[in-house]
């Protein structure tokens, strides 16, 4: 039995923002797969919920004429695993999506909920970090656009201001065109699990084997998803080799803020970063049109 005191459904975005302005106690519910768990666990009491699921305009996935890929926050994980735009242009997001939960959860969980929940383990987040996604946030006061890296403030904390709704996730052409990518979800189970480490790597090649650009997004390597700038900078201009890959892995640890918990030790987490970043990069290189490295 859930402690829900009030429940409303909005049909349009303006109806939703107005409702939120009128009643600041209202919380948005999309798929509910994070929210209801919190209710069940008693982290939220006497909930007042505003469902946005019926706002049709928020579940699109499309490539706009200017090349921007626009994802509505209500796009489900199932949608992302199957969507032709995602598969053609940002397949790394489809990889991330299919690694998430199980079929039932993927059918109902939304990418907006995944991001707004603020978990470092969110499976879409490391890829969205590597893709330098932008978030559009709208309230009755107006709208703003924020890089995803600025949206995450701490564990479970995001820069979502009172009355704001995430209405769009944007990926700009300069961040995906010509890139190959790969996502590795390292977890204890092959389904229904949260990542011990999420590694999203994108790269672009020049002259067949020179790394022109590398972007590494990590989940569960710190309190929020993060990028490995030092490792990325090192890689640029280097010819692909096992040594370079290993060095990228070693440097990636420096950006991480791994800690020991009963789930895994810091030492093990760092070892995994060192091991899995090169594995993801190796595959990303192949996706970017490079050769396999012996």
């Amino acid at each position, binding site marked *: *039995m859930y*402690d829900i005191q009030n429940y409303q459904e909005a049909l349009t975005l303006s109806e939703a923002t107005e409702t939120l302005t009128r009643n600041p106690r209202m919380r948005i519910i999309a798929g509910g797969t994070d929210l209801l768990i919190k209710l069940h666990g008693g982290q939220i009491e006497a909930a007042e919920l505003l469902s946005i699921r019926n706002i049709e305009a928020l579940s699109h996935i499309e490539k706009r004429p200017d090349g921007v890929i626009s994802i509505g926050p209500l796009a489900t994980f199932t949608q992302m695993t199957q969507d032709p735009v995602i598969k053609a242009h940002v397949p790394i997001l489809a990889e991330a999506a299919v690694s998430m939960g*199980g079929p039932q959860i993927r059918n109902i969980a939304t990418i907006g909920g995944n991001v707004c929940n603020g978990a470092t383990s969110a499976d879409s987040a490391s890829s969205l970090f590597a893709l330098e996604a932008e978030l559009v946030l709208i309230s009755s006061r107006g709208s703003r656009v924020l890089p995803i890296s600025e949206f995450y403030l701490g564990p479970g904390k995001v820069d979502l201001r009172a009355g704001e709704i995430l209405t769009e996730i944007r990926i700009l052409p300069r961040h995906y065109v010509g890139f190959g990518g790969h996502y590795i979800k*390292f977890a*204890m*189970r*092959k*389904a*229904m*699990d*949260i990542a*011990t480490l999420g590694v999203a790597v994108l790269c672009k090649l020049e002259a067949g084997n020179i790394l022109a650009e590398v972007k590494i997004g990590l989940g569960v390597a710190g309190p929020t998803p993060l990028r490995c700038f030092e490792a990325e900078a090192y890689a640029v201009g280097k010819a692909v080799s096992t040594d370079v890959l290993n060095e990228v892995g070693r440097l990636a640890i420096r950006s991480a803020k791994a800690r020991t918990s*009963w*789930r*895994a*030790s810091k030492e*093990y987490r760092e*070892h*995994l970063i060192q*091991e*899995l970043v090169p594995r993801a990069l190796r595959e990303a290189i192949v996706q970017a049109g490079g050769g396999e490295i012996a």
Partner: protein
Amino acid sequence: MAYTIVGKSVPRIDAVAKVTGKAKYTDDFFERDMLVGKVLRSPYAHALVKHIDTTKAKELPGVKAVLTYQDVPQIKFATAGHPFNLDPSHQDKADRLILTGKARFVGDAVAAVVATDELIAEEALRLIEVEYEQLEALLTSEAAMKEGAPLIHEDCPHNILSDRGFRMGNLEEAFLAADTVVEGEYETSMVQHCHLENHISYAYVDTHDRIVIVTSTQIPHIIRRIVGQALGIPWGRIRVIKPYVGGGFGAKQDACLEPLTAAMTLAVGGQPVKLNYSREECMIDTRRRHDFKFKIKSGVTRDGKILGMHIEAVSNTGAYASHGHSIAGAGGSKFRYLYAIPAIKYEPKTVYTNLPVAGAMRGYGSPQMVYALECHIEDIAKKLNLDPIEIRRKNLIEIGHVDPLSQNKIMSSGIRECIDKGKALIRWEAKKEAYQQQAGDKRRGLGMAAFSYASGTHPIGLEIAGARIVLNQDGSVQVQIGATEIGQGSDTVFAQMVAEVLGLPIDRVHVVSEQDTDISPFDTGAYASRQTYISGMAVKKAAEEIKAKILDFAWGLTDIPAHALDLKEQNVVYKHSGESVLPLAEVALSTYYDTVFAQPITSDVSNNARVNAVPYGVTFAEVEVDLKTGKIEILEIYNVHDSGTIVNPRLAEGQVHGGVSMGIGYALSEQLLFDPKTGKPLNNNLLDYKLPTIMDTPDIGVAFVETHEPTGSFGVKSLGEPPALSPAPAIRNAVLDATGVAFNQLPMNPQRVFEKLKQAGLI
């Protein structure tokens, strides 16, 4: 032996009811004005309740009753689901109260609320004010046994619940005669059953002032007795009803919540009260598997004959005894049917700690023992540089062996054939050859393990079973059994047995799946892999009685002597030729309505089985270890079983799939974790407790070596628990083969594998 319907993969008789949602489980029943019960749990692992104030909770609108330890009978009772023992010295340890004034683990029930709905009940729990005096929390067996440690139960010095072991043969001589002595230490983890349906029951007082309890249990008749004892009321005043049950694996072979549910309804004047544990509650306050630490020392000849074995075991039973005192003993007895070891000394200690209560769980001490033993045998083989399969073969027991302690006699054994079959299925020789030279980050290896078990509990426990059959007017029958269907398929197997004896198609056998202690025959329930073997004897006996009565009646109708008649395909036939004499339906109708001779045919039998049969089997596993991440992948796994006659191959395969999957979780990922300082549970939910999903489960190869067990009806032996026994050590031995590193602690999860490979210099 040729049977008509025994041995066929008849579809489960409850399959359609279950997949269409028609089958009713405890939570599907509704009573008018049903109230909800909730439990207030101690936040401390070891603490005295100094003061408890329920005033505010009682004042909350919607709250019907608040109970504390002061409001329940001060009668200590035992919760273990064993048959009652007339000999007081063999009775289960009575160490529990319905609610306690001394909390012995985080989650121990100190008070309870009955309210009109769940949210009000939860609110009321927050309004109960409890003042605790914290005591030193004893969170490991070592801490609990330390000199001067506080006593968890006043009457158990050193917190040792029991230390009864055994000796057979002369161990000292065995070690003197041995060429080598091999020693090893092995440790298993705390795991939980994770049955699909959580623990749930509801209770009310009926119009005759009797307490009716509907509950998800494996043992309705035993629950009746335990509730009677806990409340101090005559057992006959309690009626227990068991509807469909969504799994138990031993966690429901125990009185976890029925006494409290009964106390709750009494507290509200008999109004119905439902107590429905959440998964989180289930994982800490029902039962879990005992974690064991073993020290084994063996005296062995150069060529691998084991002369003597000294086994020391420490079993952590948690805060209350439950089955603790018998589990170390059971683990020590059932492995003895595998290898002919002339001298064994077994020294177990079962220790109370301030952790959740351990109880019965599929295998009942044997998964722990088989793990330790089969790791140890592998270590012996490695030390002596012998083939691991050959060393096992060399020590196997022969048919005819009589165990000197239990007096159980081996009358059938297919263990040798199981080994051959497993070896062939996994293509042992070819792969061993192929994996000799391996390089790179991923290494493959092969391992195997064997086991012996038992069918029921004789001679330790009483093995009584009951069955009742009624012949209907149309020649179909109703079957009532005391044994409980909890998902394992026993109803279907019993229907097949009855159909076989009476020459009926399966759809003419109607099994009453529900057990009701007012109506159902007496049987102690689903545990110890006993039902097909033990309850099957009662079912067959009841069916044979019906058959004899039918043939007698037909004699009266036809003048053909009963001994010349038989039943086949719903006809009374001549035994010698099979020629039809009369349709069974005609006979059946006459038994009801013949104006002179009418006497409807029924049977109502009980069977006290004073035998036991030993099932055998093996697991063969092939793994791939990622040396860099510590992940172990099972590439192939086969379980081969000798369980006597297989009554229903498809259902039997289902048992094996489930058991192997449980074994894989035990080997690789499952473990209940607690804060080492406070004893608070860290992962009592299915996200953090790593029960494998179907995606983590490889294709499981299942094969049977069918023997004919003379003591079993239709030649059966047990199969319920055995599949879970040998996977973990087989996987461990495969990992040893792949990496050269011996893992002696479960589970072999990536973090632990990483640490160990690092120690070994492989990372």
